[in-house]
């Protein structure tokens, strides 16, 4: 199968005047884990719901495994496992009954595999869904999505309510799906949720695809930081004009330099004075994520960025 798992062309969905998805061209390869990133309200769920024929496109089209989402939806949905972003189940059914119901709608699944999934996720299937914690409800959703070994998993913010240990198991499960040649379309509003598993990420905002990039490429491009401590106060323009330097913050003997690309030019400039201490920090993908948002366009960005993108600890430090 070298057919793309998902291919959209100029896919557009308007609600009244608002274009929730705006001319989206997206291609997800078969057998990859694709991270679909964007702040809340960027159009991630709308895109997914278009793919599942829950919403109807205003214009444009999309294919899943080469099948038109409008005309061949039933066949498409046979091959999809889906966890909605805002998962709701029938509160009066037990976990087991819920699984049985959805398994029945798929014409039956291997119940031994269901039990295996439940055990790996440590899901309780015995009680009524209404009595579950949100984490356990989410696990039922995941089991339901994985149980028929679908060719394409579409997971909308699937980490909600899962504790870190279960998240690890979940990520293992995603890698196994990929190893199996199957495809994962993983939507999230935080990069950290997808960077460990995704091969590529696409960033969407205001319904438009901002960038599609390999995760390792993103990491390579990531802005890194060096903190220098000098013996004597250094001039404020020490790093001015140095290639790759994005910003340099100099206070007396302390210099905080953020840069991209090669570290050599930065070191050359830094070594012109006597360095007593040097501290390097890891690449922070969250910043790239923010940078892509900022790069796109104008004035209303600020507010979206700061309110919807969770800052990492490091980020907060820097701001302070």
């Amino acid at each position, binding site marked *: 199968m070298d057919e793309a798992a998902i291919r959209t062309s100029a896919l557009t969905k308007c609600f009244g005047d608002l274009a929730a998805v705006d001319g989206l061209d997206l291609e997800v390869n078969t057998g990859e884990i694709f991270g679909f990133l964007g702040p809340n309200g960027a159009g991630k769920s709308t895109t997914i719901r278009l793919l599942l024929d829950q919403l109807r496109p205003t214009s444009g089209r999309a294919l899943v495994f080469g099948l038109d989402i409008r005309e061949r939806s039933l066949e498409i949905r046979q091959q999809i496992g889906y966890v909605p972003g805002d998962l709701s189940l029938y509160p009066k059914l037990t976990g087991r009954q819920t699984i049985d119901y959805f398994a*029945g709608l798929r014409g039956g699944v291997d119940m031994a595999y269901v039990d295996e999934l439940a055990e790996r996720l440590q899901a309780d299937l015995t009680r009524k869904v209404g009595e579950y914690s949100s984490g356990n409800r989410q696990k039922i959703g995941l089991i339901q999505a994985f149980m028929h070994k679908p060719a394409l998993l579409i997971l909308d913010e699937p980490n909600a309510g899962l504790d870190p240990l279960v998240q690890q198991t979940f990520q293992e499960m995603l890698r196994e799906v990929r190893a199996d040649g199957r495809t994962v379309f993983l939507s999230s509003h935080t990069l950290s949720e997808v960077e460990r598993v995704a091969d590529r990420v696409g960033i969407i905002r205001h319904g438009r695809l901002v960038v599609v990039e390999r995760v390792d490429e993103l990491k390579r491009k990531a802005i890194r930081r060096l903190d220098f401590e000098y013996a004597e106060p250094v001039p404020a323009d020490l790093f001015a004009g140095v290639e790759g330097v994005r910003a340099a913050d100099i206070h007396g003997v302390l210099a905080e330099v953020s840069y991209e690309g090669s570290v050599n030019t930065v070191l050359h400039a830094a070594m012109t004075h006597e360095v007593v201490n040097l501290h390097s920090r890891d690449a922070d993908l969250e910043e790239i994520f923010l940078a892509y948002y900022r790069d796109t366009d104008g004035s209303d960005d600020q507010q979206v960025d700061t309110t919807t993108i969770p800052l990492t600890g490091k980020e907060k430090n820097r701001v302070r």
Partner: protein
Amino acid sequence: MSAELLTHEVRQRRTGTLALSLVLGAFAFFALAMSGSLGQTLSDLTKDMPEGLKAFVGSNVPGGYLVGETFTLIAPITLVAYAVIAGASAVAGEERDGTMSMLSAQPVTRTRVLLAKAGGLALSLLGVTTVFWAGLALADLTYGSELTAGRLAAATIHLLFLGLAFAAIALAVGAATGRPEIASAVAGGIAITAYLTNAMLPLAGLDRWAELSPWYYALASDPLRHGIDLAHLGVLTGLGAIALVIAVITFRRRDLLG
């Protein structure tokens, strides 16, 4: 796969169906059981009233006032209220509750989902009316009356078809809008207006106008006295079928809300 959908619908409606069945069944039993003694008092009370008013009060019905009230007022109103509420939330309720997004991601067509919903509603109403009839028949058997189980069944079947028609209307509005509150408001509004049309206009001498009302086709032929009126049941069936077709068409076309 349709069987799973229908089974699920029946299971979801089980509690409501059972509760309403018991209430209506018990009520029917006691209404018929008491009608003998109470009936005489009431006939005395209403014997000088004009015919129209008697019809409105229900005292000129075989079985007397209580059975009359049961068949013209209490049972149909209860049944229609239940039909409207259940019908309104059948499709749209899943959107309100957010479960539709899971359901509609499964490999089942919207038409199948909707027809399973309709089937669940029909079975629920059938269950309620059957227990209602059983309550009446049991009382009839125990205490005796001028009514027969067959006539009671005829009147009950008329009520069932009335309930089905309004359930279909509520289902259609819910399927078209995805909003259960709009569906109950619209279908409930139609039910009340239609009820008043059927009950009040004849009093004002506007008998023909009552024929616009679904209630007319449930009650006017007096099935308790004359048995089933196939033509009237046909009208109710047609109404329900039209509503169901509208439900399928509109539900297939629109964006799902939840």
